């Protein structure tokens, strides 16, 4: 702060400023252009932009490939992404909204489809005069009836594959996916092909779930989860096969710097961290004011 005070004193004692051309127009060879880039791994993806319409639709959506670039600055943020076959994106309706009392809402699976933009298969589901996509489970097939409810009964329900219930309504040992991180938070965990979480135990109003990473987390009992293991179980066993196939999948050649057994990449055998309680969703970031003093 002391530096700033010194700076302001300096600028106050200066003579009235001469009118000069805007800096952006001049070519300043000694001046570095400051570009702000987002960090990878903070929840923003740099593979593609999906052009979402205002209202939910089952029409496959158009995408734009980003090749690892930040769409605002245009600079490369994530390495190793680029090219690939243009796919169409199917908009998944993450929130499985059911009645809070009474019998469960029933929905019919119309078709199980492959989606080029994700590893698991997606299921087209019909209810009333509404169509939507959800992630398909391992055993899901056309014609299945799925149940959705937000009721937590005293005795756990006996769920089928693809049913969605709050964690508190499911028996211990159930395999689940599409797990809400916090009630009503638009963040759902466990999406990848063939993955599942397991309900381990319950205490107070929390339910402990083991995620695919084997770590244990305690979620609120009203968090919605879908029952079953995700489809395309063989995905992790599938060989890419060739370098060209890797390019078709949208990945650039590897850097060659990764060493399995050495340095920071090397094998580390550590105990799993203890169970963690999921933190409530963070407060919205406050709007920053950018001060416009031109240095």
């Amino acid at each position, binding site marked *: *702060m002391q*530096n*700033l005070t010194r*700076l302001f004193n300096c600028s106050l004692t200066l003579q009235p400023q001469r009118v000069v051309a805007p800096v952006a127009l001049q070519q300043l060879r000694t001046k570095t252009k*400051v570009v702000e880039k987002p960090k990878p791994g903070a929840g923003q993806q740099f593979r593609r932009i999906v052009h979402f319409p205002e209202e939910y*639709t*089952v*029409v*496959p959506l158009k995408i734009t490939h980003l090749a690892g670039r930040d769409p605002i600055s245009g600079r490369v943020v994530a390495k190793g992404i680029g090219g690939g*076959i243009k796919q*169409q994106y*199917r908009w998944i309706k993450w929130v499985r909204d059911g009645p809070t009392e009474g019998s469960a*809402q*029933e*929905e*019919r699976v*119309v*078709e199980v*489809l492959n989606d080029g933009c994700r590893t698991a298969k997606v299921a*087209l589901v*019909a*209810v*009333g*005069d*509404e*169509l939507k*996509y959800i992630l398909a489970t391992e055993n899901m097939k056309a014609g299945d*009836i799925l149940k959705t409810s937000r009721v937590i009964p005293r005795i756990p329900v006996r769920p089928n594959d693809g049913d969605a219930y709050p964690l508190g309504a499911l028996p211990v040992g159930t395999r689940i996916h599409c797990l809400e991180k916090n009630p009503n938070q638009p963040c759902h965990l466990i999406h990848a092909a063939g993955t599942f979480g397991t309900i381990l135990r319950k205490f107070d109003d929390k339910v402990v779930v083991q995620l695919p990473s084997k770590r244990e987390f305690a979620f609120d009992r009203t968090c919605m989860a879908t029952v079953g293991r995700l489809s395309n179980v063989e995905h992790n066993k599938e060989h890419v096969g060739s370098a060209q196939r890797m390019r*078709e999948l949208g990945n650039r050649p590897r850097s060659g710097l990764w060493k399995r057994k050495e340095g920071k990449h090397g094998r580390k055998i550590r105990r799993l961290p203890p169970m963690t309680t999921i933190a409530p969703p963070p407060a919205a970031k*406050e*709007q*920053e*004011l*950018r*001060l416009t*003093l031109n*240095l």
Partner: protein
Amino acid sequence: MRLTNKLCAQHIGWHFKKHWLVQGKRVPRETGAAAELQRLGVQVKSPEEILEPKRERKVVNIIGSALKPVLEDHTHPNWHSNPCHLFSDNNVLLGGIPQAQVLTNSIEIQNFPQHIDDAIKNQQLPSVLDKNVRHAILSSHVLDAEQVKLPKVKLVDRPAFNLPRVYGISHERRNRLLLNKLLFEIEKLAGRSVSVRRKLVDNAGFKTSISKDGDLLGFDTKADKLICSTRALSTIKGKFDGDLPDLYPMKCTISIPKCQIYTEDNLYPFRPDVNCSHPHTLFAYFDKHLTRNSHGSEVTENQFQARTMVKAFALAVARAKQLHGNSTAGALTRPIVVQSIQTDGRVFHFGIFQLNTLDLNSSSATKNYWFHRQSTELFTECGYQAGRPHLEGYNGETIRILNAFYHNS
């Protein structure tokens, strides 16, 4: 001190600049100063208000070179708060025939009416007919001179492979030629006494709307070819019973797009006082690149057949509303019968729709009838093989059904 890298690293200006990048971003905190000033009666203004006072802009209406586009929102003159389920040429019913049955309140009879069945069995056709039909198929599918860019072909298991672009006869032209030639053969057989009572029209659009259980259904489709006759088709004799299928948990309006900009007018391609205005047979082309499921899947056989049925229903409703007025509802004194044929150039689907009632509600006692058989193939393969026109698996049944339909009165 000598100007070295070391010195530059600690250059104070550079230091300020780097510091300012961080410190120049501030989150204004609520200090309570504004509230305190307001309590003391001092007006609080944001600096922007004084530095850049708002200038009122005068809106001038200029007549430009082009008309202003009408916005497709609630300011649109045809905007309704109650949405309409609009069935058009480009969509199909997700649930296929069962959904179409519930939607149109119809019983499905998986055969033709008795008189059509008899006509198909008992017709005497010259042996030259099949030869002429083979020629007709070849000349429309292979030998026509049109060469346009056909839709792109993608291999499912090799998505990165770009196949060479194929040129050929467009889908619409191929079907139009084929139907024209088939109908020409049939008209030759029928002679003047029958053909003088029929008129052929291309691209006859029709439009109607009807309500069902509180939902408004709109139909805006066209008959790619329409045969009209001087007399209406006679009512099908016999009583048919059956139950409507249960679509639970779906509603019958599923997959029909909703829209809020629509008109509820009724449009039938002819005035009622025209001599030849009765609907006889509707032909619809099916192009898988134009008509598709909203979610992008291939149209199934059942959905294909449901499209034949809904088109026939829409034409019958448009005609009924033209005859009896737009507000008419309930059972019709004289049912309207429409024959409907859909083809993709190879597969033909024939059906007959009898509109008994305009009351589509689930409580309605009267039901409409839909007679149809499974689709028939005109041939299995047609194209060039080793540089020669080649037709394989010709099936003569299609032309016999078509002939029976044409003669039906």
